């Protein structure tokens, strides 16, 4: 039986392309080019590093439905579009192409939350704002809110610097720095109650001012209603 099966197996490995190559041809090549060298619709993937590839795929930014349209604007996790096994297959296929850039980092939740907060203030707050709420970064672009990211997506983004985001390599943020910083970002997601007991955190002076005016409107309604009834 094995003797009969052997030629079939050999044929499959020699003749058929790998699953990653199939997926790439079907979903990526139209914009990134058959050789992953780019096209008018999409950038080259040469030497971008697996961290960037993993980030784009796991957050669901890629594959992009429309080339040239900013994917997942204000992305709070557009949702993985590809199942995990296909992502892994793509990464295996692209590994030789993208080599030279940052690899997929290891990360765990670091022990030092205070250090993570300091790192966040120094490196992230200017774009991602306080509490990971995200914000505008000029033109019509957006540094996304971080409340739905997984720890791996956060670590990928830090190491890869996708899109307009700068790249924070191991020389600048060591592995323990990365763990602490990613851990801090994860801690922002647990909506622990503010000291007031009700988790309606302020997101800044803008909503505070709006609520102040609502309060005035409530007061005016009170006196108006009261005056009308007498």
């Amino acid at each position, binding site marked *: 039986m094995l003797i009969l099966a052997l030629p079939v197996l050999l044929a499959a490995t020699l003749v058929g392309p790998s699953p990653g190559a199939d997926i790439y041809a079907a979903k990526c090549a139209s914009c990134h080019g058959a050789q992953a060298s780019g096209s008018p619709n999409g950038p080259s993937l040469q030497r971008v590093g697996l961290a960037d590839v993993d980030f784009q795929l796991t957050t669901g930014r890629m594959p992009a439905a429309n080339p040239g349209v900013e994917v997942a604007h204000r992305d709070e996790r557009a949702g993985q579009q590809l199942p995990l096994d296909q992502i892994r297959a793509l990464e295996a296929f692209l590994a030789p192409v993208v080599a030279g850039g940052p690899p997929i980092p290891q990360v765990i939740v670091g022990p030092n939350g205070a250090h993570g907060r300091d790192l966040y203030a120094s490196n992230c707050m200017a774009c991602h704002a306080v509490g990971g709420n995200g914000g505008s970064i000029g033109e019509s672009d957006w540094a996304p809110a971080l409340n739905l990211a997984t720890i791996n997506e956060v670590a990928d983004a830090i190491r890869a610097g996708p899109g307009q985001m700068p790249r924070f390599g191991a020389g600048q943020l060591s592995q323990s720095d990365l763990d602490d910083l990613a851990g801090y970002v994860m801690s922002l997601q647990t909506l622990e109650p503010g000291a007031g007991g009700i988790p309606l955190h302020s997101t*800044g002076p*803008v909503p505070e001012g709006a609520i102040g005016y609502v309060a005035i409107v409530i007061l005016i309604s009170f006196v108006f209603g009261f005056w009308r009834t007498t």
Partner: protein
Amino acid sequence: MIVRRVVAWADERFGTNALLHTALKKIYPDHWSFYLGEFALYFFMVLVGTGIWLTFAFDAGSQGAYASVVQLASRDHPIGYVIRQIHHWAAVCFVAAILVHMGRIFFTGAFRRPRELNWMIGVTMLALASFTGFTGYSLPNDDLSGTGLRIAYSVALSIPLIGRWAAGVFNGGDDFPGSLLTTHLYTLHVYLLPVMIGALLAAHLGLLIYQKHTQFARDERNVVGRRFWPDYALRTLAALGATLAVLALLATFFEINPVGDYGLYRPWLVMNGAVPDWYAAFLEGALRLGPAAELRIAGHPIPPVFWPGLVLPTVAFVFLLAWPFIEARLTGDRAAHDVLDRPTRVPLRVGVGAALIFEGVLLTLAAGDDQTAATLHVRLETLVWVYRIALLVGPIVVGVVAARLAAEMRARAAGSPAPDVVLLVRNAHGGYDEEEPQAG
């Protein structure tokens, strides 16, 4: 019983019965819009009360300021937390109440002779309230307010001839931030500014009592309304209760100014979305829209922040201050008035008021232009130009349209036919047809 004895005791020594009698039987005109000034007054009283408490919790030396405020934000200090939250909410609502009250005064013409001085006192108090708020929320030395202080310092620096001196007064003479900055802010916020507001407030209320409150048309020569005791006293007590209730509800449900999240101020750290509290946002918007041109006079630079940061608010302030006299000159109406206008009676005033409101709202919106651009998927530069054009053209359009509308409403109110008049016309078949009566 006790009250009667206390009153008698006082009267024997100070002769207070006559004064009390006059005060308690005084007549107050009653309209819902007359309570707006009271809201502002009550917010101010809450600010002073909670503020005095906070001076005992706050460490006014620059080193300890941040830590002392963060302590109030922790679960270990629930009373302090509530007092601080009420204090900041009261500040946000105080300026809003002043602005709405000022709007009522403006659109009903209550500022006309003989009340021009009271108007000017009120406009000054609006400016002082804004300064007090700004210095107050800058006291904790957190990253958000520290960024705002840096900008204010640059605006002070931009004044021609005396810029460096003015900035030096602000923070003690060193380069920003300087070691005396928090101390100076404390002096301003806790002592100088509230005393100035208090003094002006006393004058404001004193003038109001002496000149008597204006009223909507019922009687030219008499004040018509309700007796203070017990009628109006109960109503104003209800307004006080409502004010306090609103503040307590805000403190219950909405966290304000979480300085623990912002972190201590460091000159090289900044957060995205750094904007001031709402009442200073119009200046932030003006700074964003202002052109980048730096003029030079004999080699001396006049930095671009000077025009939107200082000239604009000064011109606006002076214009508001002088409005009673400007309007009197433009309408030719220099008579004394105790009766309020229906807002549409003076279209010029409606137009100017609408234009001013438009400018203020536009500049406030411009303070978030980066977020607006990103949300609407437009380039920021494009949006900035749209705002700039709207800033120059908008008030003229809005003012003219508003004035026209007011004039039309005034004309319709004056010349409308009686609603139950109908014209019946005999037609050819012997029946009657209804026709619209001709406008008289």
